């Protein structure tokens, strides 16, 4: 199945209550698949095409604030339009899933795959101090698996989660094992699992629930921010996810996520054939960034090469992690932009050029 179609199928199967979206290449198949599948007849999941990404993210806000499991999907320019709404969702502490099937930018850019929204995704993206949980799939199987995982984390932390894919994984066809069907939660189940914060209509048994990000009292607003930051630190402590490939004896470690990680897996094989001890670290959670494994690898290796489909964004987080580990290990960058996917050979050449030719 196609990556985008799998996202839709996974949403239906994980007991999602609703999807709101707006068409944009290269992810329009998500909503098209949902409309064709008509899950409202099957699981009760509602699907609505909004008038804009701005409306879609605010529909998500409204629905998420009633305790429902809801998602939207878009691609880079559309995510920029949603940034305001995501900030409100983070500020109001609502769980939801936003999927970005990235294309090249800036501006209207290109419809070809890119990873140029890394910083936007992991640093917040909208206004104010907030973070999203960001998961980066590198296969169609992970497009399936991460939908459920993202919702679990979103509800655990009452925080928006993002799946940061790209056009290549969205359009790619691979074999996939779909998840089993889960039932949608009832309002009572949501309260039992996650507490009674949602706006479901005020019974006499509780105070009114107000979902807002507004607090004009600076002392209280600072306290809100401190609570958010505590939550983000807890994510950093508990939710770092990654995969390593041939890092055991590696002298040089490629660091890459998503599509560029697939390329780098082949690069490791080519490099090993050439006698170069190269390994791959694939961050799965981009926020929280897998700093712990970098601090473990730093003393053992000669250098890191960040391979990205952008001008060098994740490389900053690798440098930061190496620095925080007290290491002076070299961190280099190789990337392509504009919708170009680097070849495995390009990456090996970059390793040789940056680390071995001096």
């Amino acid at each position, binding site marked *: 199945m196609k990556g985008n179609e799998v996202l839709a199928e996974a949403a239906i199967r994980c007991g999602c209550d609703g999807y709101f979206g707006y068409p944009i290449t290269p992810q329009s198949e998500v909503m098209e698949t949902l409309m064709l599948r008509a899950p409202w007849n099957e699981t009760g999941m*509602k699907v*609505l095409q909004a008038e804009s990404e701005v*409306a879609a993210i*605010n529909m998500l806000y409204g*629905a998420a*604030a009633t305790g429902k499991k809801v998602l939207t999907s878009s691609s880079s320019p559309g995510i920029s339009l949603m940034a305001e709404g995501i900030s409100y969702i983070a500020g109001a502490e609502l769980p939801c899933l936003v999927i970005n099937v990235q294309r090249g930018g800036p501006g209207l850019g290109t419809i070809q795959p890119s990873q140029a929204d890394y910083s936007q995704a992991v640093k917040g993206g909208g206004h104010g101090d907030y973070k999203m949980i960001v998961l980066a799939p590198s296969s169609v199987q992970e497009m399936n698996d991460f939908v459920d995982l993202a919702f679990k984390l979103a509800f655990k932390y009452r925080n928006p989660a993002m799946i940061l894919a790209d056009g290549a994984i969205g359009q790619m066809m691979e074999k996939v094992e779909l998840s089993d069907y889960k039932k949608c939660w009832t309002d009572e189940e949501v309260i039992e699992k996650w507490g009674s914060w949602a706006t479901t209509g005020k019974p*006499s048994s509780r105070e*009114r629930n*107000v979902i*807002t990000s507004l607090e004009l009292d600076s002392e209280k607003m600072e306290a809100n921010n401190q609570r958010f930051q505590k939550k983000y630190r807890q994510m950093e402590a508990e939710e770092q996810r990654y995969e390593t490939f041939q890092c055991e004896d590696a002298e040089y470690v490629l660091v890459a996520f998503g599509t560029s990680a697939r390329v780098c897996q082949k690069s490791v094989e080519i490099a090993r054939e050439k006698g170069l001890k190269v390994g791959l670290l694939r961050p799965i959670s981009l926020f929280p960034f897998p700093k712990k494994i970098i601090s473990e690898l730093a003393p053992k290796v000669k250098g890191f090469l960040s391979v990205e489909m952008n001008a060098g964004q994740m490389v900053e987080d690798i440098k930061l992690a190496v620095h925080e580990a007290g290491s002076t290990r070299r961190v280099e960058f190789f990337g392509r932009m504009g919708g170009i996917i680097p070849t495995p050979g390009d990456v090996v050449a970059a390793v040789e050029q940056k680390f071995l030719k001096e």
Partner: protein
Amino acid sequence: MDVKEIIKPENQVYGKTELLTDNVMHYCPGCTHGVVHKLMAELIDEMGLQEKAIGVAPVGCAVFAYNYIDIDWQEAAHGRAPAVATGIVRLNPEKFVFTYQGDGDLASIGAAEIIHACNRGENILVVFINNGIYGMTGGQMAPTTLEKMVTSTTPCGRDTELNGYPLKMTDLVAQLPGTSYVTRQSAQSAPAVRKCKRALKKGIKNVLDKKGTSFVEVVSSCNSGWKMTPVKANKWMEENMFPFYPLGDMKDSEKDKPVSNN
């Protein structure tokens, strides 16, 4: 006779609904918001809707509506209340969902959201407070500001060559097949308040009957923004706002034939 002998339940002619909280309202004296809040609180109480009601507050003066009516509330981003309400009602069709928005929120930054929500016929009530000005930010021009009206961003009066023309949102949404009841009311006098309450009640009833979007505009004064006393502001409203924004029902699907574009 002692006063305590008079204060008895059987002698009570008027009481405050319990749904109106005891929080001191931040609204300026003479503002219409307090009256319309009271009407909504009374209606939700009288119609037994507290457990079903979810309000969506705007950005603007009514941003703190959630402090005054004792129901579940969501605070929307500026102009996005109809989209937020759409998200709520699509997934919770048995709830009574309403937005409460001012004219800067609804007619300017949120014009797209309100048009599309009404056009889809989202089953919600929209309460639209139109005072022709941005009150919260200090009296700037709104899309609804009358021609030649002085605001802080039109110090010489609204010039239609520069700023365009005042926008009649209620007339626009009445054209959309998704709306079932569209009316323009006011709340500056006891008769007007009673009429306004009847209109809001009809809007709520239509939502409960799943008839699509009901839209109740309340032409209001903003004495602070207009730099007038409350009394003078109401007089100015009657003399200037009402001729341009005439009161009355614009669409009532119970009485009218459906609006057709053919």
